């Protein structure tokens, strides 16, 4: 398929294909738009809003907005970066994110995003919500303290694994990741080999008994910031 649409991101001309979203075209062009819920090969959910860009002066989620000939996209601007920093801050204080003993530390996209944005600590007060752990499954567990409600596991289980093991329940501050079962995770047909088990950006949906097997220094974001793999790629 030819790249027959052109538009600009921060003044740089980008070529795109019909049907592509802004974030897909930006990734191919080696331009990083920060994101937490979007993941290649999953149907975009548009829930975290970290990928928000200005399209012809209006805010849009880059992961769900299709490209259109000639649009002007603002991505890496002070206003958008401030907006993202606030969102990341809020995600931290809405949960109980204790990086110091989280197995995901070093591989965590939320933590890596905070480092990329230079956030040593959230500016908003911690809410310390009362969240639970569902460890009823023999091989996997949900730690809702760390869930950022990105919906990746919901999408992966439904669209890739064909299981609909996960779903959202509740609204507003009471919204949580739930399981498609009468009671607990252990009652679902979810398995450790499911795609859903490898998509969580944080330490919320985890495989059991693999804690800290990868040493410090060898974890994904120990040496390179999140997004660098896109920024260093050449146009395909």
């Amino acid at each position: 398929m030819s790249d027959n649409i052109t538009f600009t991101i921060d003044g740089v001309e980008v070529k795109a294909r019909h049907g592509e979203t802004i974030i897909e075209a930006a990734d191919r062009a080696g331009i990083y738009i920060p994101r937490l819920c979007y993941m290649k090969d999953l149907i975009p959910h548009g829930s975290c809003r970290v990928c928000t860009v200005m399209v012809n002066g209006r805010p849009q989620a880059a992961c769900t907005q299709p490209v259109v000939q000639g649009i002007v996209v603002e991505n890496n601007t002070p206003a958008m970066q401030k907006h993202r920093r606030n969102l990341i801050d809020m995600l931290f204080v809405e949960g109980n994110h204790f990086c110091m003993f989280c197995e995901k530390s070093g591989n965590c996209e939320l933590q890596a995003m905070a480092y990329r944005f230079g956030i040593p600590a959230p500016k908003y007060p911690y809410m310390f919500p009362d969240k639970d752990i569902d460890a009823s499954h023999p091989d996997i567990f949900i730690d809702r303290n760390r869930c950022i409600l990105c919906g990746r596991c919901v999408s992966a289980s439904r669209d890739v694994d064909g299981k609909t093991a996960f779903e959202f329940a509740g609204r507003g501050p009471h919204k949580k990741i739930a399981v498609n079962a009468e009671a607990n995770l252990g009652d679902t047909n979810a398995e450790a080999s499911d795609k859903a088990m490898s998509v969580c950006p944080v330490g919320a949906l985890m495989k059991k008994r693999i804690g800290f097997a990868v040493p410090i220094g060898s974890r994904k974001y120990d040496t390179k910031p999140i997004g660098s793999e896109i920024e260093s790629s050449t146009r395909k």
Partner: protein
Amino acid sequence: MSTEKKLKRIIIEPVTRVEGHGKVSILLDEKNKVRQARLHIVEFRGFERFIQGRPYWEVPVLVQRLCGICPVSHHLAAAKAMDVIVGADKLTPAAEKIRRLMHYGQMFQSHALHFFHLCSPDLLFGFESDPAIRNVIGVAAKFPALAVQGVMMRKYGQEIIKATAGKKIHGTGAIPGGVNKNLSTAERDVFLKDIEKMMDWARGALKIAKDYTVEHLQTLAPFGSFDSNHLSLVRKDGAMDLYHGNLRAIDAQGDKIFDQVDYQKYLDYIAEEVRSWSYMKFPFIKQLGPENGWYRVGPLARLNTCDFIDTPEAEKARKEFTAVTNNKPNNITMAYHWARMIELLHSIEKIKDLLNDKDLQGKDLVVKGKRREEGVGLIEAPRGTLFHHYRVNKNDQIEMANLIVSTTHNNEPMNRAVQKVAEDKLSGQKITEGLLNNVEVAIRAYDPCLSCATHAMGKMPLTIELYDHNGNLLDRKTKS
């Protein structure tokens, strides 16, 4: 009016140059004689409660957050308990030796820190010298070479921790059933380059501690001293082993109370008493009861309980140490410093042996076996025997945790030491700087970590308050 209201009370709060927050109160009777002295630990304990529900494999990393001074000890004790949980009854040679290297690195840096930064001002300048110079800055000004050695020895130990655990503080190296990395030859060679210098400096530190103790023996022998039982791990052949072994307890004369006890059964031998005035419990040997069953742990206890040390220079030093008390247990509180420096030398000898062991480059790092519901991990931490005990439910979550840290074992001995010093040094109703520091010196000999003992955070300046027999405040002194 109650009897206690007629007494005078002196409070020393906070106590300085130890880790954590505590206060000392000294209660006087109507004749200004010490009736009672107590070390109150007023920080709140919480770790055992809030780790409940966490997955067990998180615990070795989580629980070390108790402390920034000896996190490695908690990390390894918890990992050893988790070895039991995952059925890893025997680690691979690479895993055990990497853990030992981490532990000896920790022991080396912690003992160096305590001796050079916390205790040496007392030894080099005298207990009652000007407090303006009796501190680590004063040491750096008058003995610059010594101060540099202290810093560099600590750095060496910290770098070993980083190489084995991933970080100098709060690493992740030990995991249930083994470790997550080995030591590369490049990492090893960096340490081998400086090993002889570290050996030399450790010998020098030992000489200072030994010469000071021998020279001042007449003064030091009664200072805060008393007969006590002693407890530590020892190897099956009776050798000192700081990483692993079985429990041995001896009395003040050296007779064994119990020996080669499998620490998985520690509850059959050790119990803890709660007293209303301190958040820190008082452990005791069950068969002797709370009145007589208290004991000391740490360097002095380890030197007393072991039959020998398996490294040549530390063994030679041990023989000199035991000769001072005619091969009977040494019950001199201030001998802790000498014992600590023997362990410093032992640790660096062990580090040298390990660095030359090719098992450290092994690739077989983790083993597992039959899953268990309960596990106990013990280690000889710098300050003494450290107990970690966990129960894990069928969903892999922590259901119960009990930690007995070194400073908790030494709770009763520290109280006795304070009482002894107060009886000997206090006169009249005035608080002197000398009294204040003499009390601290006695506590400091144990290298207590009070934040760790109550599993909280804090720092430790010092105040004394003196009350008359009607409970009125007569005098108060604070230093920070």
